[in-house]
């Protein structure tokens, strides 16, 4: 399989895998975070700013690591 076809297959696999993760993440994490972060926003803006940065950076790294790991796993199985 040439690199372009490999890439297209990877993308086609990546999208449903990610979609599943997003749904799980969305219901689990955001529902848990909602009240706490809203309370922080209302009471301490500086701490809220720090929490915003920490959350968005952590989520970015976590999502990237998860996809990379899953893609490696899928590619290994595909040979």
């Amino acid at each position, binding site marked *: 399989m040439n*690199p*372009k076809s490999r*890439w297209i297959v*990877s*993308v086609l696999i*990546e*999208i449903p895998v*990610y979609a599943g993760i*997003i749904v799980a*993440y*969305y219901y689990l*994490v*955001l529902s848990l*975070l*909602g009240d706490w*972060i*809203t309370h922080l*926003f209302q009471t301490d*803006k*500086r701490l*809220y*700013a*720090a*929490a*915003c*940065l920490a*959350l*968005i*950076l952590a*989520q*970015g*790294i976590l*999502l*990237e690591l998860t*996809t*990379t790991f899953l893609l490696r796993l899928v590619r290994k199985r595909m040979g």
Partner: protein
Amino acid sequence: MDFPISHAHIHPIYLILVGFVIGVLGGFFGVGGSFIAGPALRLVGLQWNMAVGTDLAHIVGKSVVAARKHRALGNIDFKLGFIMIIGTIAGAETGAQGIEALKRHGDVNQVVSWVSIVVYFSISMFMAWDAWKSLRARDAERKRGAPDTHSDKTSVERVTSRIQKFHLPPMISLPTSGIESISVWAIIAVAFVGGLFSGFLGGGAGYIRMPSMVYLLGIPTHLAIGTDLFEIIISAGYSTASHAVKGNVDILIALVMNTGAAIGAQIGATATQFFRGPGIRLAFVPLPLIGMAIVIYTLVTGQKL
């Protein structure tokens, strides 16, 4: 879904889709995508200040994903990125001060709108001209059977060479970008201009920084994209913190958008492997034009998208 911080009611699928589109653009072109995210958030009823701050937070998350992918592909020059941060932050502060000065002395909206129209249009036309010339030069070489030396050359190599020869110490080398010697001041000046536009026009100003890195500093296109994304993490992170303290960030919206952006950014970053510099630059041309169209719409209708 209700977002208690901004009191907005937005369907999460909408946010994920918007994030996905911006993620693809960001991963492929190294831009923040604020010219799409801002209007998209406004469209669902978010206040302008909240849309700007939330968009910046989302840009940080998306850039982390894309930059990590570009790092794996060897597309980040960290030395260059760290030096550029100094100029970007100084420029962003100056741009923000410029806005404040305009607010005191005149019609800030008119000035900013017309400046952005001229800037967006000029960048688009210049990049279209350059990409077209570079692609023609490459095709001509191919027809002659010569080896492909135009893979990432631009049409303004002379200007780039002059900037690289500009001798104002301290001079440094950028081995990752293939530059033997360049003045630190030249790098800071280019970053300052990018930051200035970021502070003046809003967003990350990747539409200026990425082309400036390619044309003025002579950074290969792929490295300019990756390094720009790395730099955006720091500069947009700084702006996010600043907006969050002022209560302009709904982090829950940004987190939902970021889930879609994470997929898009990976796809966009990986896709750069299959395109050469001039091809990427040619595909970049419509982006500033979209920004220009939004500004013209705002000017004509008086409604901020």
